[in-house]
Structure formats: structure tokens, C-alpha cells
């Protein structure tokens, strides 16, 4: 029991929350960027997978983690553009296309992995590179806080910085305004001469960019190789985290952190022999409850305002 308390209250535990949250947060931001323009990107999972794969491959070939990252993100963006092409030009159902792209990515990465390394499970026989961890000057010397906030993977910082950038982008910039307009009323956007198609392409591209970072983090930070289907549903979890947070990047962040917390807790909880099925279930139960509370409180809030007014 002592160990458990020790496990939960240790700075490393909070540190690990941030790390576990990172890929989910990228996925959530990817979901957000497509969702504000009115398209649900089910293909995030596949994009992450592609990026994770190419990141490892190219970093192994070139010996540079950064070029690997670039390649990974590029592959994800290309995939997102292909998805956009099917959706916007060939008028494929977006959900269906997303699922098809996920299937495609899962198959293609394993196939290519085999082609390049002769191995179908993982790239662990390949010497690939990881992106560095970063100590934040000043903060790293503060006792507990430093242990939690400093020394993270560079992409973890990028993820949290992205939250602010994305929020600013969506709500303060012209392109963000156009994105939201297309999402809320495409006819209105069209009526002022905005090309709805172009905007949706852009939003898909940005979504692919975020998914690309998320995938690269998995294979070039979290661990140091590619393994088949290594995203393991994180793209979908990201979609859920975004849905929890609505059209706000901060909302997406809180949603992702909720998942991160529940997941990190579930790892630690296994130690006290709660059946693993239950601890594994934890993040999902958490989400359902959080969703219920959130949705309910929103309803109650509206009711309350009205009642107060009535009394007055």
C-alpha cells in the first residue's frame, strides 16, 4: 500500500501523466482542427501510424532524428491530403474514407516494414533515432515542480505549446475565422467568395500535421522503434478527448489530460492486484462519467439561469 501511495504521489507519476497525454493531445488537436471546419477526421489513427513508421525509417536511413520527424510528419500530411481528395473531390463518405485509410495504413506500414527490414512486427532491429529531451533552465532546479515539468521530450513541449497556438489560430486569425465559418455554415462562407473546398483542404492538412507529430512522438520518443499498429486506438481516444472539450483547444487539452491521468493511474494501480481488466477499463469509465457530468451540468446551467431570472 505504501508503495502505491508512493507511486501515485511521486513527481514521476505526474511526469508520466504529461508523457502519456502527449500523443493523445496531438490526436485531439488533429481532431479539433478538422472538426472546426466541419469534417470528422476518423483517419487520425492511420495518419499517426504512417508518421510513426516513416519517422523511424527515415531517421534510421539518414541518421538524423529531425529528418525522420520531417519525413513522418510529411507522410501524415500527404495521407491527410489524399483523404481530403477522396472526401472533397471524389465525394467519398468521410467516415468511410477515414476507416479505409486506417485499414490502408495498418496494412501498408507492416508491408513496407517487411520490405525494408524483413521483419513484420517491429523495427527493433533497426538503429533509429529519437528526438531529444529538454531540460528547461530555471524550472528544472525547482524541487518537485522541476521533476514534473522539466526533462520532457521535445514533442511533449510542442504538444502543449500547440494548444495555445491552435487556440490563437482558430479564434484570432483570418484563416481561423474562415475555418470556423466553413464549419458552421459552409453556404455562408461560400457566399462571400471563400472556397469551402480549399478551406477544408487546409483544415485536413493541419489535422494531418498534428497527427503526424503524435505518431512521430510514439516511435521517436515514447519508444524508439516502430511496431505494427502501435497507435493502438490513440487516434480514436484523441477524437473522444476533443469531443469532450468542444471547439476549444484548451478543452481538448483538458480532455486529453483526463485520459492521461486515468491511464497513468491505471498503470500504477495494477500493483495492488486489482484485476488488470478493471484498471485497463479505468480511462474509459472515467470518460463516460466525465461526459455525463459535463453534459448534464450544461443542461442544468441553462435551467438555472432561467429559474433565477424568473424569480427576479
Amino acid at each position, binding site marked *: 500500500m505504501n508503495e502505491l501511495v508512493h507511486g501515485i504521489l511521486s513527481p514521476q507519476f505526474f511526469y508520466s501523466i504529461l508523457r502519456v497525454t502527449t500523443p493523445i493531445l496531438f490526436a485531439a488537436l488533429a481532431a479539433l482542427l478538422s472538426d472546426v471546419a466541419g469534417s470528422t477526421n476518423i483517419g487520425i489513427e492511420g495518419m499517426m501510424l504512417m508518421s510513426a513508421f516513416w519517422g523511424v525509417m527515415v531517421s534510421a536511413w539518414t541518421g538524423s532524428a529531425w529528418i525522420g520527424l520531417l519525413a513522418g510528419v510529411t507522410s501524415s500530411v500527404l495521407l491527410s491530403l489524399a483523404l481530403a481528395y477522396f472526401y472533397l473531390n471524389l465525394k467519398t463518405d468521410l467516415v468511410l474514407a477515414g476507416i479505409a485509410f486506417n485499414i490502408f495504413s495498418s496494412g501498408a506500414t507492416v508491408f513496407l516494414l517487411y520490405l525494408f527490414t524483413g521483419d513484420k512486427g517491429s523495427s527493433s532491429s533497426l538503429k533509429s533515432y529519437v528526438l531529444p529531451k529538454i531540460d528547461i533552465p530555471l524550472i528544472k532546479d525547482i524541487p518537485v515542480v522541476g521533476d514534473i515539468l522539466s526533462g520532457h521530450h521535445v514533442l511533449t513541449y510542442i504538444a502543449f505549446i500547440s494548444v495555445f497556438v491552435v487556440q490563437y489560430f482558430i479564434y484570432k486569425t483570418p484563416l481561423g*475565422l474562415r475555418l470556423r465559418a466553413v464549419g458552421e455554415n459552409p453556404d455562408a462562407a461560400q457566399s462571400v*467568395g471563400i472556397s469551402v473546398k480549399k478551406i477544408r483542404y487546409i483544415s485536413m492538412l493541419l489535422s494531418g500535421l498534428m497527427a503526424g507529430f503524435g505518431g512521430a512522438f510514439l516511435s521517436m520518443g515514447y519508444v524508439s522503434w516502430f511496431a505494427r499498429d502501435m497507435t493502438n486506438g490513440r487516434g480514436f481516444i484523441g477524437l473522444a478527448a476533443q469531443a469532450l472539450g468542444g471547439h476549444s483547444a484548451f478543452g481538448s487539452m483538458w480532455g486529453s489530460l483526463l485520459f492521461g491521468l486515468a491511464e497513468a493511474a491505471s498503470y500504477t494501480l495494477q500493483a495492488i492486484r486489482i484485476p488488470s481488466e478493471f484498471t485497463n477499463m479505468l480511462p474509459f469509465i472515467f470518460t463516460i462519467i466525465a461526459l455525463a457530468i459535463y453534459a448534464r451540468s450544461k443542461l442544468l446551467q441553462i435551467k438555472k439561469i432561467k429559474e433565477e431570472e*424568473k424569480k427576479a
Partner: protein
Amino acid sequence: MKAIEMIDIVKVYPNGIVANKGVNFEVEEGEIHALVGENGAGKTTLMKILFGIEQPTSGEIRIFEKEVHIHSPHDAIAKGIGMVHQHFMLVPSFTVAENIVLGMEPKKGFSIDMDEAVKIVEEASKRYGLEVPPTERVLDLPVGIKQRIEILKALVRGAKILILDEPTAVLTPQETEELFVALKNLAKKGMTIIFISHKLKEVKEISDRVTVLRDGKTMGTFLTKDVSEEDISRLMVGRDVELVIERPEPKPGKIVLEVKNLNYFREDGVQVLKNVSFALREGEILGVAGVEGNGQRELVEILTGLRFGAIGSVRLLGEEILGYDAYTLRRKKIAHIPEDRVEKGAALKASIAENLISDRYYKEPFSKRLLLFPRKVIEYAKKAIKDFSIKTDSPLTPVGMLSGGNMQKVVVAREFTAGAKLLIADQPTRGIDVGSTEFVRKELIKVRDEGVAVLLVSADLQEILQLSDRIIVMYKGEIVGYFDKNEGLTEEELGYYMLGVKRHDENKIKEAFAL
């Protein structure tokens, strides 16, 4: 100089409907040119082609005597064309300024310069005499303002040609007047204006020339002063249309609807109904006049079970029904023609037949126990399509493919045949052509004479005056006027009450209803 020439325009929609069958259309620079025609004649389609939303199947377009190809609204805007659509095209959660500068946002660094945007709007507002509140969200604004936003949207993009697709359908006479003043001003400054309307009186008042479309073809272009309203409607419909409707004396019976001290607060806390009380008898039409946004919508939604949380009393044939939902009220024989046919009145993706039975699908002959009988439904729909002259080739056509006016007819057809005791008609003839308006109004009188109690809400004062047996006027959520016999009452007089300049004593109104 000719601003627009559209030559031999043919448009085939993807479903095979030929909406324009070789239309020729010419507009001179600086004129106000009216485009009229029955519902489904192809007016909107023609304008969408001009604005680049639809591509013509064949035909040629010249703008300022240069041949052009317009592939998108972006092209159209670049060529100086602006369009105000039949159904509003605004982003509800955006502010007025955001809506107007969308796509041409002023920038400060990476951000939108909101101050500059507001300034742009204020300046344009002043210049064209179209006042709007730049920082308010569009969501909460009345339609009159939305209309102005749409026009401003086109103007700040430097439009030299302005298309207005039924801009007055939702406006009060005063608002229409203001709009006309603004339009005339614009025309004087050299703006070319295309004006689509079913209100021939307005066409006569504002336009220099008029082009009539019928069934996708041009019937001719005339100097407005050379043709009378009757002439125009004859050209449109192909027969004479009675513009004045005969109305036999009402024979009011017992009280059907009794509303007492109704109060309602909206979600945002604003009180939109204040002590509303009135009564309505069978066999009579009670007109509710008022500028849109003065509580009529909320009143109607409360009465029809679409909005909850009001306090007071509403009785239907003596039974308290406040707080009941639409499911219950429909079964207590309340029918409802809603203000908004696209959002509420119809399922655009469903067929005409399916739309026509949405309130009676569970009854014979359409259904028995669990089962539904589609053949019966289609038979019924065919009859309704004929009775209400809905222009379509099949009862299985999705309603979304009908023209605006024909959509309205589908809604009207359903609600008139609901066998209701109380019919609440909110803007029943909005966007319907003269021929069909005549039909709907006659139908209203007919159901009244059959003993139905009709609550008629309309922004069209002519309609109110023509049809109502009694009239109440709403202003800021209150009933401020009551008129028993409307003979002699003028639109202008009514307008004073609608704008809150005059009001009757509250007790007098209550007395009139014997409440």
C-alpha cells in the same frame, strides 16, 4: 451600357430537372430590374448561375459587355457581383462585423484587426444608410437587421451589381420602406440592382423594368410603368389572378384558445413575453401583427409545444395545456405552419410524401397497429400535390429539391388537411407566388368557415388586414393594440402600434376578449 446579359441559359440539375430552358435576361447599368415568376420558375437558379454557385449546362454570360465564365462566388465577387440569398447565409455564432469581413479580414500581425473590422462596418453602414450593430452576435438579431447585414456583405466587397432574392419576404412595411430608400440611393449612385419578389406592389414601386419567367423560359421584359400588377401576374401564371379576396362575414363560435397572463423568459434571461392575454373563437381568424422579434415566435412555439418554461395559463377548449409537448398538442388537434420551413416545417432530405404525413403517419389509412402502408401514403401525396399545385414530377422527390415556394406549399398542404381545431399559421404565404398566395389565403378563409380557429401571425400587413377578423399587435413581448373590425384600419396606423409609438390601454384589451 448593359451590365448583364445572360443568353440562352440552360440549367439541368443533377436529378434531371431542367430549371432554366434557354433564358435570356438583360439588365442595364444603374437600373433596378425586377425578376418575377411563379414558384419554381427558375429565378433563384438563374441568379445562382450568375453568382457562380451553379454552373450553367449551356449558355453565355456577359458582364459589362465582356464575356465571362463564373466558376465560383469568388469569381462573381471579383467581377463586382453581390448576392443576397433567399435563405440567409450568415454564420450565426459570429458577430455582425465578423460576418461582414469574413474572407477579407483586416489584419494586424497574424491576428484579425477587430477594431478595423468594426470600423469598416460602421463606415459602410453610414455610407449606405443601413444601420447594424457591429459587435453583436447574429444569432440574436431580428431578420430585418440580418437582411441589412447581407446587403452590407455584398457592398463592402465592392459590388456593382446587387442581386436580391426575395429580400422583402420577411420585412415589415417600415423596414421594406427603409430598404427601398437605400436601394434607390444605391441605384442613383450607379449600382445595378436585380430584385426578385412575389409582391407585385413592391415590384411596381421600386423597379424600372421587369422580366417575367415562366417555367424556365423568359416571357418578356417590360418597362414597369407600362404594365399593371394584373398584367404581370397574368404573364406569370397564364391566367387572371384575383388580387382581392372575398371574405364572408365570420360566424364565431365558442372559445377555442384562451391565453391568460403568459410570461416567458428566454435562455439568456430576457423577458420576451409579458402578461400576454387573448382569446380565439372557432370560425374566426385572429391576426397577430408586429415587427419580427417582438415575441411572436416564442408565443407560437409555446402554444405548439416546442418551447417550455412559460408561466401563466393556456387553455384549449377549456383544458389547461401549458407545458404540453408537440406530441400531445398535435393529438389535441393543433396544427402549425411554422415560420421556418427549412428548419422545422419540412425534412428536406425526405420525400414530399413522407413530409405530408409526418403528423398523421400513425393513423388510418396510413398505418394500422405497427404497420405502415406506403402505397396509401403515395396515393395521398399525389392528391395533395394536385390539390395544392406543388410543382414536381413525383411524390418521391425530396423536398429539398423543390423551389422555395413549393416547399412552403408542402407544409401548408399538410397543416391545412390536419383536421385541426386550432390552426396556428406563422407567415403562411412567405415566399409563395401570387397565384399560390391567392390559393393559400382562400384556403385559410375556407378552414375558418369550416369552424377552425385560426391564429395568423404575419409580417405582411396586407395579409393581416385582408384576412383577419380581429387583430392584436405585439410590441416588445406585450400586446399593445387590439382592433376588432379592421375595416378602415390602414397599414400605416397599424405600423404605429407595431413600432411602439401608440398603444391601447391594457384593460381595454382584456375587456375586448372578455377575460
